[in-house]
C-alpha cells in the first residue's frame, strides 16, 4: 500500500500502455517498410498503435497470457521500428565510449531482452484502449522528433505516451519512450549507474544477464 491515489491508477494503465506502445513500434513488416518510411512520424505512430492494439485484442491466445505468442509478436513487429542500439547507448552513457563491440552488443541484447520480456506481460491486459495524437509543435523537416499520443480506455485515466524518434535511412525509429512524464532512457540511466560504478560495463552486462535469467525462470 505504498502508492498514492493519483499514481495508482495511472501506473496500472501506464504499464499496459508501455507494453502496447512497444508493440506499436513496428507493425509494418518488411513488405510495408517502403511506404511507411516516408510517412510523417506522428501518422506512422498513430497508425501502428491502432493496428497493434487491434491485433492484440483480436488474439485470444495473447489475451490468455500465452507468453511465447507474445514474444513472437514482439520479435516480429518491434525490432524493425525501435533503434535499440541508440536506446542502449544513450542509457549507458559515457562508459559506452570505452566499451568494446562485443560488450556493446551484449549490452544492447540484454537491455532489449529485459524490456521485451518484462513489458510483454502487460500486453495481455489490453482491453479497449484507443490511441489519440496530442499536438506537437514545429517539427517539420526535423530528423529527430517527439510524437505525443494519449491512450484512452473506458476505465482509468488517459495515459500520456510520448515517443522520441530519429529519421534513419531505414525509416523513422523509436529510441525513447515517455509514459506519464517518465522517460525510459532517463529512468534506466540511473538504474545502470550503480552496476557501472561497482564494476564497469562487464558488471552491468552481468547484472542484466542475471536479471533476465530470473525473469525467464519466473515466467516458465
Amino acid at each position, binding site marked *: *500500500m*505504498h*502508492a*498514492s*491515489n*493519483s*499514481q*495508482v*491508477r495511472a*501506473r*496500472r494503465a*501506464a*504499464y499496459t500502455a508501455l507494453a502496447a506502445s512497444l508493440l506499436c513500434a513496428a507493425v509494418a513488416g518488411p513488405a510495408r517498410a517502403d511506404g511507411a518510411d516516408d510517412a510523417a512520424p506522428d501518422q506512422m505512430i498513430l497508425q501502428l498503435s491502432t493496428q497493434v492494439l487491434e491485433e492484440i485484442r483480436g488474439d485470444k491466445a495473447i489475451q490468455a497470457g500465452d507468453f511465447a505468442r507474445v514474444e513472437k509478436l514482439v520479435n516480429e513487429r518491434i525490432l524493425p521500428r525501435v533503434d535499440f542500439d*541508440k536506446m542502449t*547507448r*544513450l542509457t*549507458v*552513457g*559515457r*562508459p*559506452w*565510449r*570505452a*566499451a*568494446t563491440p562485443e*560488450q556493446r552488443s551484449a549490452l544492447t541484447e540484454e537491455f532489449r531482452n*529485459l524490456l521485451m520480456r*518484462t*513489458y510483454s*506481460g*502487460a500486453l495481455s*491486459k489490453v482491453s479497449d484502449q484507443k490511441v489519440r495524437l496530442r499536438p506537437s*509543435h514545429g517539427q517539420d523537416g526535423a530528423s529527430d522528433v*517527439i510524437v505525443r499520443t494519449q491512450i484512452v480506455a473506458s476505465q482509468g*485515466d*488517459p495515459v*500520456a505516451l*510520448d515517443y522520441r524518434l530519429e529519421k534513419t535511412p531505414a525509416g523513422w525509429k523509436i529510441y*525513447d519512450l*515517455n509514459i*506519464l*512524464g*517518465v*522517460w525510459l*532512457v*532517463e*529512468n534506466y*540511466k*540511473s*538504474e*545502470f*549507474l*550503480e*552496476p*557501472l*560504478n*561497482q564494476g*564497469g*560495463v562487464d558488471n552491468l552486462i552481468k547484472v542484466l544477464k542475471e536479471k533476465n535469467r530470473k525473469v525467464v525462470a*519466473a515466467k516458465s
Partner: protein
Amino acid sequence: MSGHLRGGPAAILFAAACALGGCAATIPPGAGGNPADPFERVNRHIDAFNTRFDENVGQPAARGYNAVLPRVLRDCLSNIFDNLAEVGNLFNATLQAKAGEAARDAGRLLINSTVGIGGCFDVATPAGLERKRQNFGVTMGTWGVPQGAYLVLPLLGPSTVRQTAGLIPDFYLTDPVGYLRPAKDVYYVGTVRLLGDRAAILDASRLVDEAALDRYTFLRDGYLQRLRSRVNDGSGMSAPPIEDPDAPDPPGDAPPPAAPPAVAPPGATAAAAPADAPADAPPAR
C-alpha cells in the same frame, strides 16, 4: 496522496510488519550520493518496511478485496472516491490559476454526482471532461516551491519534503473523507479506499519488480520524473537533452578518458570506465 492513517494504528502496524519479516535493507555502497536523495539510507529502510508490509498485509488484503467484490462494485466504489477527490482537484486547479481545468473539474463533480448517481458512474469522461488529478504539493510546485529531498513515507510510499507538507491541506482541508464524523468512520472509509487503490495496481506492482534492476531507484527516479512533469504540466517539449556518447564533446569539456568509440583494449578501458562513471551522476532534480 492523502494521509489516511494516523499515530496509533500506524505504529502498531509498523511493529507488526517488522516482526513478521525484519526491516533491514541492503544499502548499496553509493547510497546518499544522489543530490535529490540525501536521505537514501533511511529511505531504503522505510522502503524495506513498506515492502514487507505490502507483501504480508497489503497484497493479501488487496487480493481478498478483488475476490470478494465483483468488478462492477469495485469500479463503482473507485469512481465514488475519484468523484470525492474532484473537490481537491478543483481547489488546486483554482490555486494554480488554471481556469479551464477548474471548470472541467467542477463540471465533472456536478455531472458525476447527479447523472452518475453519487459518483458511481463516470459519465463525465465519455462526455469529454477528462479527469486531472491535482494535489497541494504540485500546486506549491507551480508557485515555485522547490521539490525538496526525496522521502519514502511509512505505508504511503514515495514523496518529497514539499509533497509531504502538501498532505496536510490535502487531507484536512480538501478531502471529503476527512470530514466524516465520528472519527473512526474516517479510518474505515479510508482503509476501503486504500484497499481499492492497492487492488487496482496488483499487476503493475509485479511488473515493477520485473522491470527494475533496483526497485528502490526505479521507483524513486520514476516518481521524481513524473512529479516534475506534473508540475510543468507536461508543457510543450519537456524532453531533457540526452547526452549521446557517440557525439563529440563540446569544446571546453574534459577529453574522454579512453580511446574514441572504435575498438579499445578491454583491460585499459575496463579500468577507465568505472572511474568515469561517477561523473555521470544524474543532475540535481
